[in-house]
């Protein structure tokens, strides 16, 4: 079966979810573009968008319509060529509208699993529940006549467990998009010892067509991305607790300080507590619980997360993409308050910000904002100068930052040493492209 034949009938499970909808969008566009080739005009391309929620599917179609318009607006020059033979399509308006229809026309929303039985390729993006994944994979495998391949978007369940329990025998791999799939360029590719070469080849070609950066990861729960993020987050929470105890300050102040240090001093797009909120306190806790049983000599969990969830504070995002409140409270996307687990209420930053910043000390003149590093040509040099200054400084924040940087590096090295990553470069690529860090965790800045 050729690449194109494989993509003539595809199903996405969990298509209405945040990850599923992104995967559906990318795949629908790829399939519609294949169909536009003159030699494929008479072939049918079917993409089943399967989800348990009818309301979710309805929202998905609206999301698709808006997103495909954006895609079309960016490639109108190409589309004009593809529709050159259509005399009725003259203006960009006409052409973009037609393309939106052509992409939507590939998609079949459905709440029924049966439609997947005809698919050559199954993308799975349902919740991180191994047993449910195994159940659905088995059901499709047992009923399908076309012997499909399974691509799972799991970020934490080991692929070989799914393979063994569902009896997929080399026809499954981990194809882990980052959130949101339509924007994030990183994909972690996880093969098992048995994954067939042709499955992997197809995955690589598909990723290339989607203009994704592939980083191979070994089949360890959490893989590279969460392998780093979860441990990094645990370190952040440990540090906040230690700081609160050592300085005898309320935890919320320590959370503010650690969040600020990880953003401004480590030059990251957001602080560690904001990142936990972005992913969702509940999701982070859940991923840890999936990873933990696979790490016998290491405890992957954190009581701060448990406490937040007990108190009903979950973070995550509204369907509009706006940030929900978690460790931090947000207004217009910016933190304005921190959750006080003691009193169970948010405390406005204004009330304690200055005091915390006084404790932290001031940033050296060499400091650099994350955003300004994006197009910086001499980034290494500028960051090196800043981090060198931090190492010399005797302020609280500088010390916390240097320690944090070292821990982040140790985590990166651990991922390589424990053979999750093929190289420390791969760890760096994941953090650079998947987490938009300005520099890889495995560096010499903090040595």
């Amino acid at each position, binding site marked *: 079966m050729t690449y194109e034949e494989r993509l003539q009938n595809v199903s996405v499970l969990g298509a209405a979810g945040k990850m599923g909808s992104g995967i559906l969008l990318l795949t629908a566009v790829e399939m519609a573009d294949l169909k536009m080739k003159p030699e494929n005009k008479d072939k049918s391309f079917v993409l089943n968008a399967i989800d348990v929620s009818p309301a979710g599917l309805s929202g998905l179609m609206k999301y698709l319509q808006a997103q495909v318009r954006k895609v079309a*607006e960016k490639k*109108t*020059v190409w*589309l*004009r060529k593809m529709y050159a033979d259509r*005399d009725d399509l*003259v*203006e*960009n*308006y006409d052409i*973009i509208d037609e393309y939106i229809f052509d992409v939507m026309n590939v998609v079949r929303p459905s709440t029924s699993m049966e439609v997947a039985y005809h698919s050559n390729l199954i993308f799975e993006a349902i919740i991180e529940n191994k047993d449910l994944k195994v159940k659905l994979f088995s059901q499709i495998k047992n009923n399908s006549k076309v012997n499909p391949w399974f691509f799972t978007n799991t970020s934490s369940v080991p692929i070989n467990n799914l393979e063994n329990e569902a009896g997929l025998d080399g026809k499954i791999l981990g194809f882990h998009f980052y959130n949101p799939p339509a924007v994030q360029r990183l994909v972690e590719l996880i093969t098992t010892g048995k994954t067939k070469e042709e499955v992997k080849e197809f995955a690589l070609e598909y990723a290339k067509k989607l203009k994704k950066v592939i980083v191979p990861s070994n089949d360890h729960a959490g893989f590279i991305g969460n392998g780093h993020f979860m441990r990094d987050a645990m370190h952040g929470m440990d540090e906040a607790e230690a700081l609160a105890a050592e300085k005898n300050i309320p935890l919320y102040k320590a959370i503010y300080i650690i969040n600020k240090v990880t953003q401004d001093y480590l030059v990251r797009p957001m602080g560690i507590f904001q990142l936990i909120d972005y992913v969702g306190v509940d999701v982070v806790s859940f991923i840890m619980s999936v990873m933990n049983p696979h790490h016998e000599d290491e405890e992957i969990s954190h009581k701060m997360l448990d406490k937040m969830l007990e108190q009903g504070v979950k973070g995550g995002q509204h369907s509009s993409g706006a940030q929900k409140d978690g460790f931090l409270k947000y207004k217009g996307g910016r933190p304005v308050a921190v959750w006080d687990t003691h009193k169970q209420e948010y405390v406005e930053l204004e009330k304690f910000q200055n005091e915390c910043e006084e404790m932290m000390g001031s940033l050296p003149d060499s400091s650099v904002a994350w955003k300004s590093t994006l197009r910086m040509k001499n980034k290494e040099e500028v960051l090196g100068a800043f981090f060198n200054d931090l190492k010399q400084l005797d302020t609280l924040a500088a010390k916390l930052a240097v320690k944090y940087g070292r821990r982040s590096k140790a985590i990166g090295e651990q991922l390589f040493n424990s053979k999750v990553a093929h190289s420390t470069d791969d760890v760096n690529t994941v953090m650079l492209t998947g987490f938009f860090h300005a520099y890889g965790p495995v560096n010499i800045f903090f040595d």
Partner: protein
Amino acid sequence: MKKLRRKVYMTGGYNTISLGTGRREFNPKKPRPGLEHYISEAGKAVLEKIGGADNVDESVIGNFMAARFNKQANLPGFVPMIDKKLQWKPAASVEGACGSGGLALTYGIRSVLAEIADVVLTLGVEVQNTVKAIYGADILAGAGWYQKRKNGHAYFFPGQFSDRAGVYYEKYGYDRARKGMARWFANAMENARLDPTAQEYHNTNPDPYGLALKMKPNGAAFVDHLSVLDCSKVSDGASGIAICSEEGLERIGIDKKDAVEVMGWAQVIRDITNDPADPAELEAIPRAAKEAMESAGVTIDQIGTIETHDCFSIAGILAVEGLGLAAKGEGADWVDAGNTARDGYMPMNTTGGLIGWGHPTGATGVHQAVTIWQQLTGKAGNAQINISDDRPYGMTINMGGDDVTVVAIVYKRG
């Protein structure tokens, strides 16, 4: 054209800001003022300078495509909204694509010459940020022949002028052409920074020339032979000016020294269904300019400043050659040598032109007249250039479409 049978003046000019990317107050996600606001702001400002609406005999609005950008036609109906005293007086709108503003000026001039009016409130307006650029390109493509739209570029007009630039590069050399175009851009930025209403007023790039030279045209991302810096931006804005007879000036109580006199003018049209005979050459612009100068009885060496229609940097360079300021193929060198800079031999587009000040399409022709009026009467503020006694004339050249509908006017301080 014969000498004008009556003296015609322009005075009381006004520009709104040219709103669009580049202005700090521009936020594509927030609601913005509409057509009504711009017509009203420019109209009221001119009326205030000329002693109120009682003094106005009739009004005219230059506009290109409100019918699509704003789903609004019948613009004359908005004139009484400026001032209720304009109700029951004549008003019209005229259209000639990006030359609409120039046509509005000729409408006013004709009325004065025909002794139908002594004071004509002349406005130009366009509000284009209502749609994304990719759809705006469709609307602006209306300035070309619709039957050629299907095979045109997604960005139709940049595509047209990209083709011209491509031929120019081939004939005369890529590097020297790009240098001239980069200088054109740099002049536009430097001039726009001196005019608070300019779209690039807030531009702070320390090296616009280097920036433009570095940005190579890339057909995969945009068009083959132009970068975005070679193009005017999408703008919302309006300009207004009063066109008067001598009696009209007396009526509004403005001294001739605070007005410019229209010494000569011309309007020519080229067949929209024909491609340019030589893409590296303009035909309508040189003809219009020549006729306007003949009508004024002046030669190019008597003209001290020119506002020319640089919707694209290549159009500026081709105009320089068309005016005979440089030989064919040498316009880019001439511009790169600084001859069109504000302190050069022939300062052009001294408030930034279409690339720097902005290009609210239907307003541009009127904006050019306002700039010349400001410069010749010493009202250009920080953008003021020196006008010497031996070259006291100014000229505006406004173009609709790809060298199709052109208006040229020669002015002198009254």
